[in-house]
């Protein structure tokens, strides 16, 4: 993974000192609440319903075991001994004290971590595929590009006060696991006729109140121009994005208002001027820099393994052990290096808020990473953890250890692998609670045979239309709404965050909390009755449409 040199380290250290000074001046009454707001947000600090919340950056989801141990220690020392993994591959502490945040940031800096730009109207953490570097369908490892973007966006002098937050995702594979079409900028790595890697650039995607799928504005951008082109997009947005109404301030609204064609022309013209003014091409990425960053992501020393033999051994173990077989089928996938697998540790056992882990579990995860995956791990936008590069012959041992610590629930990609925002239990913007709904669904669908029979099913829950739980792109989405002061839930179906991205459609009138689980059951009944062999819930919906689902759920209400 990327390791800081003295420049990177100096910058995060100076950032800690800067925020320490700002916090002190705020506590001394020298900075107003209004003026402190963007300063603390750009250091990850929110003020939530119950307490401050600190969001810590995990650049493109990659962590070392050393960093995870530090997070465990921080959560114990400064918080209540647990952390929450978010849908943007970051983590949150739910109970830090404002006065102690500078100390927390200093601890983070000691392991090359930070909370820079994890909130506020600035360029946020760049996200990518949790299987980067090992995915079978990979065109090129996206992580070096994410790191190059991270550095460019960190304290970018021109773009610290944008109209609204700004999110970038990079997709390096055939299948999309980064939901890049739902980002302000989505970057797809592509190859041209000469086999050179470049970027297909999309803009204006996003969830929230007005969900939009991003539009293509440039099909092939050569590597060296990545940063100048990003400068051009951001400059156009910074100058012309709406600043009067925060609900119209995302870049997607500007792209829509101008049309993607006009937006693309404006960016092109700005970019041509940037290039023309940069006669010596100093803003262009150098081959040396690209190489420098790429060499940080070199692959570990893989053993030569007889794939067939490894598979045969696994099959034999699985035959006698149904729980292990279930875990293999849902939580383990092949990677491009023969004999190795990528394992997803589930952070979604029933009864725990999706994405929450305790300090003890973090330490166990760090141990597992050291023992089985070269000391590295990845957070996912589905709020789980991935250990890549696990020898197939180690899977059984890994499973037993993970199971002992509650990290081996075999539910990845099933209806119980719910994406869920913190909702009304923590978030001051919420219309309704989301965690209890997730829990009720997990409790209802405990029968694993039934759950597996349902197959791949994404169920996403947001506590309000800010959509942190990505409800628009769930095969089933649940949105908390406020009806005269009561918590109700709107059900949506048919969304998808894949490359064939689709936005879910509203099923009908919203349901009370008690009726949600029953409503979901009815949706599943309709699916089971109508599905064709091998057809997923989403595919059945796409084939038969909304009506049959709707009729069933609202039958006795009409």
């Amino acid at each position, binding site marked *: 993974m990327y390791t800081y040199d003295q*420049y990177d380290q100096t910058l995060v250290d100076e950032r800690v000192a800067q925020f320490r000074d700002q916090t002190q001046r705020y506590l001394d009454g020298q900075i107003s609440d209004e003026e402190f707001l963007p300063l603390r947000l750009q250091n990850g600090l929110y003020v939530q319903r119950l307490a401050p919340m600190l969001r810590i950056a995990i650049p493109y989801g990659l962590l070392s075991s050393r960093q995870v141990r530090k997070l465990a220690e921080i959560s114990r020392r400064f918080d209540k001994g647990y952390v929450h993994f978010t849908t943007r591959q970051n983590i949150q502490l739910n109970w830090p004290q404002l006065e102690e945040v500078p100390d927390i940031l200093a601890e983070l800096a000691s392991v090359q971590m930070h909370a820079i730009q994890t909130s506020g109207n600035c360029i946020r953490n760049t996200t990518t595929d949790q299987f980067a570097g090992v995915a079978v369908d990979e065109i090129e490892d996206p992580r070096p590009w994410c790191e190059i973007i991270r550095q460019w966006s960190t304290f970018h002098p021109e773009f610290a006060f944008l109209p609204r937050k700004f999110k970038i995702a990079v997709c390096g594979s055939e299948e999309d696991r980064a939901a890049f079409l739902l980002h302000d900028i989505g970057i797809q790595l592509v190859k041209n006729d000469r086999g050179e890697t470049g970027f297909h650039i999309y803009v204006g995607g996003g969830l929230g109140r007005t969900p939009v799928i991003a539009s293509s504005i440039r099909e092939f951008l050569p590597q060296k121009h990545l*940063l100048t082109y990003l400068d051009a997009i951001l400059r156009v947005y910074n100058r012309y994005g709406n*600043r009067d109404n925060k609900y119209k301030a995302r870049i997607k609204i500007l792209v829509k208002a101008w049309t993607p064609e006009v937006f693309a022309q404006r960016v092109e013209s700005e970019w041509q001027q940037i290039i023309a*003014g940069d006669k010596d091409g100093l803003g262009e990425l150098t081959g040396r820099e690209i190489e*420098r960053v790429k060499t940080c992501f070199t692959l570990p020393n893989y053993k030569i393994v007889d794939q067939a033999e490894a598979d045969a051994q696994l099959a034999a173990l699985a035959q006698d052990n149904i729980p292990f077989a279930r875990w293999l089928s849902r939580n383990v996938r092949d990677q491009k290096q023969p004999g190795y697998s990528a394992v997803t540790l589930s952070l979604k056992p029933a009864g725990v808020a999706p994405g929450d882990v305790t300090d003890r579990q973090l330490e166990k995860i760090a141990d597992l990473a050291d023992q089985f995956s070269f000391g590295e791990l990845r957070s996912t936008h589905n709020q789980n953890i991935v250990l890549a590069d696990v020898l197939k012959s180690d899977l059984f041992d890994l499973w037993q250890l993970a199971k002992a610590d509650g990290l081996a629930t075999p539910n990845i990609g099933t209806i119980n692998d719910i994406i869920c925002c913190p909702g009304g239990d923590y978030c001051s913007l919420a219309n309704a609670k989301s965690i209890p709904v997730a829990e009720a669904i997990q409790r209802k669908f405990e029968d694993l045979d039934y759950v597996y029979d349902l197959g791949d099913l994404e169920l996403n829950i947001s506590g309000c239309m800010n959509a942190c739980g990505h409800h628009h792109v769930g095969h089933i989405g649940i949105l908390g709404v406020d009806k005269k002061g009561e918590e109700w839930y709107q059900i949506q179906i048919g969304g998808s965050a894949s490359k064939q991205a689709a936005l879910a459609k509203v099923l009908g009138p919203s349901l009370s909390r008690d009726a949600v689980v029953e409503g979901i059951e009815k949706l599943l009944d309709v699916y089971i009755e109508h599905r064709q062999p091998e057809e997923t819930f989403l595919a059945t919906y796409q084939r038969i449409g909304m009506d049959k689902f709707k009729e069933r759920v609202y039958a006795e209400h009409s």
Partner: protein
Amino acid sequence: MPNILSHGKVIDDHWILLSDEDAIPAQGDIIVPLSTWAAQREVLLAREGAVSVLLDGQDEVETIADDLAHFPMIAIHFAKFVDGRGFSSALLLRDRYHYQGNIRAIGHIIRDQLFLMKRCGFSEFSFSAEIDLHAAADSLNVFSESYQTAADTAEPLFRRRR
């Protein structure tokens, strides 16, 4: 005379800031809104004393691109400190139009923005709030390095790393 920060030093400010309703004084160095400059350009150039133009958030620097030689200073107004448009205006003046005069931030700005503003090409700061300017000057240098190219560095860090 109010004080401002200029190139890191606290100095007396001799510029007079006019609104679009103020009469144009015969003498003295004045800052006028873009609309006044557009309407009374000849009058402004004929008088004694220097003239500077005030760009608001929505004013495009492109509109004064051909006039820059007339201005020893250009002022950029911040109605709200979180309105980042002025950052682009300043950087465009430096990078695209090679403007060499002073660029002054006026209005609702806070000292914690100074480092980034300096990088975008601002050289002077006139705060609407009463603040300790000597202390504020410390915020100009909170970081010793930067990743990106900007008005202060033509080479991004990746060309200078060793």
